[in-house]
């Protein structure tokens, strides 16, 4: 197992280098001078040149990129152009907020999604099934930013139940977490239902029923664990969706997380910060997928990690 994890992490390295390279190329195509942006319009050319020299921006591009990679390997992502703080610190300051938001919405979404999916599968073609599946499809069809705006409008401005933006109390997290979770819950419900339908047609389920097990034991003892394998895959695939969603939710609800920081970094042409956030997010994604693959081995003894 340990060997497998190490091998997977080594295999991830070229991917992360590739992600960094593409980001680096993109950033160098972005119009506008980041140093001018940082120093203000009225800086004299001499100072400008000195700052560029200090930041290493006069070196050839491949030297700049090589230096970034070398430092990144040692855990140093450079300093933000805009604030002067280390990028790693800025990421670590905001990431816990994003994780808190993502986990709280994922937690509720997974419970609701799996429960609804199972009921829909067990009572296939019932009224509940149809209603749940239409709702779920609507959930994945609604743009997350619009749901956020409508939620602010209805629950914040009209009903005045919840604050519409900011991040100072647990109450502030409710709307963003729900908004972020809707899409997640909807897709989990859809996949759980179809995975469950597949499993309950298998021979071993018929055997379990034939030997007189209670329906409850069949569903929870035999079907659930087997149906969870594809569902776990989907949960893993949604990690990046959750990060994308938190980018929008944080921006709309003014939550100081990594998503909002990334938009701020891009619009301020804070290249080291953008570079660092992209690399960090890609690493989170790669590790997330690794965790999913490892969890297969626990769910399905037939899977051998190699």
């Amino acid at each position, binding site marked *: 197992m340990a060997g497998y994890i190490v091998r997977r992490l080594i295999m991830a390295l*070229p*991917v*992360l280098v*590739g*992600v960094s390279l*593409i*980001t680096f190329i*993109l*950033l160098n*195509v*972005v*119009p506008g001078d980041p140093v001018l942006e940082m120093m203000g319009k009225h800086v004299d050319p001499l100072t400008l040149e000195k700052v560029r020299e200090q930041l290493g921006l006069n070196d050839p591009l491949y030297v700049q990129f090589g230096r970034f990679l070398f430092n990144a390997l040692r855990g140093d992502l450079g300093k933000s152009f805009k604030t002067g703080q280390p990028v790693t610190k800025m990421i670590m300051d905001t990431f816990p907020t994003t994780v808190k938001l993502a986990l709280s919405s994922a937690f509720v979404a997974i419970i609701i999604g799996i429960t609804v999916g199972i009921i829909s599968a067990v009572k296939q073609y019932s009224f509940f099934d149809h209603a749940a599946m239409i709702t779920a*499809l*609507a959930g*994945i*069809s*609604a*743009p*997350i*930013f*619009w749901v956020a*705006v*409508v939620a*602010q*409008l209805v629950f914040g*401005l*009209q009903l005045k139940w919840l604050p519409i933006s900011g991040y100072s109390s647990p109450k502030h997290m409710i709307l963003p977490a729900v908004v972020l979770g809707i899409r997640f819950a909807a897709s989990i419900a859809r*996949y759980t239902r*179809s*995975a469950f339908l*597949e499993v309950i047609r298998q021979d071993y389920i018929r055997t379990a029923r034939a030997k007189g097990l209670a329906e409850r034991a069949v569903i929870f003892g035999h079907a659930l664990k087997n149906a969870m394998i*594809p569902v776990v895959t989907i949960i893993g695939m949604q990690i*990046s969706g959750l*990060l*994308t969603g938190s*980018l*929008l939710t944080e*921006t709309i609800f003014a939550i100081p997380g990594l998503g909002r920081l*990334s*938009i701020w970094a*891009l*619009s301020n042409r804070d290249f080291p910060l*953008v570079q660092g*956030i*992209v690399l960090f*997010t*890609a690493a989170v*994604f*790669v590790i997330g997928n690794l965790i999913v693959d490892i969890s297969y081995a626990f769910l399905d003894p037939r899977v051998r990690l190699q």
Partner: protein
Amino acid sequence: MDKTLHSKSTSLWGDAWRRLKKNRPAVAGLVVIIFLIIVAVMAPAISPADPIKTDLPNRLKPPGAPSAICKNGVYILGSDEFGRDILSRVIYGTRISLSVGIISQAIVTVIGVTMGALAGYYGGMMDMLVMRTADILFAFPELLFYIGVMFALGPSIYNIFIALALIGWAGVARLVRSQVLYLREMEYVEAARAQGLSDARIILRHILPNCMGPIIVSVTMGIPGAILSEATLSFLGLGVQPPTPSWGNMIYAARAYMLSNPWYSVWPGIAIMVTVFAFNLLGDGLRDALDPRLKR
């Protein structure tokens, strides 16, 4: 007597069409999509007003308010912050969303199919190169990538096509590659090779037609994603620029007037949801009809 033995033969496509026709949600989705296409094409004829014609004294009117600029004399869905007719803007927005969905998927499909077919058929270095690039693109935070590309190239609908295509092809390439890997070992392909057919002819005439099912499903499933991405980018101010109406930039504008005209933000959102919903219904139906193996 013969008649009972020879039932009418049906083609793969005929079969798929019959299965799709029986799937009521998918048919409903298809009907809505056809309706939306008609709306997009006929936009100038059916819009009550010019979508960029302003009427400043009549700003932010509620639905049903009298209007000087609308042909029927009423703002059916209300007016926006410049007194423009929201209904007309929603109608014209259909053009943006549908063209982004369809054109971006067309580009993605052409690149993805080409790359996937080359990688799968030739293997080796070609395969390595294409699939590792795809891995990298998959690890990218998608929205952040789009936003970066829009910053780099500047906001416009054409750059949205580029942004979506740069990442989107990778998924199609993976799908086509796995199909080609399987099909190239089939005996009929071997027979074609033994006959001395060129590689290009084998790929185009004998392998790709057999991958059409999964490709069609993936294109249909990709359209709603592309529509949502365009709306998101326009909402962030990086996509279609005002005064050209796009559902995304309308919702962005509407945010500032949530109190004075709450309906303003609701309409374009409903339009996005209905459109995406219809494509999802059709996609689900096509998947079940065309590709039983993909059924999950």
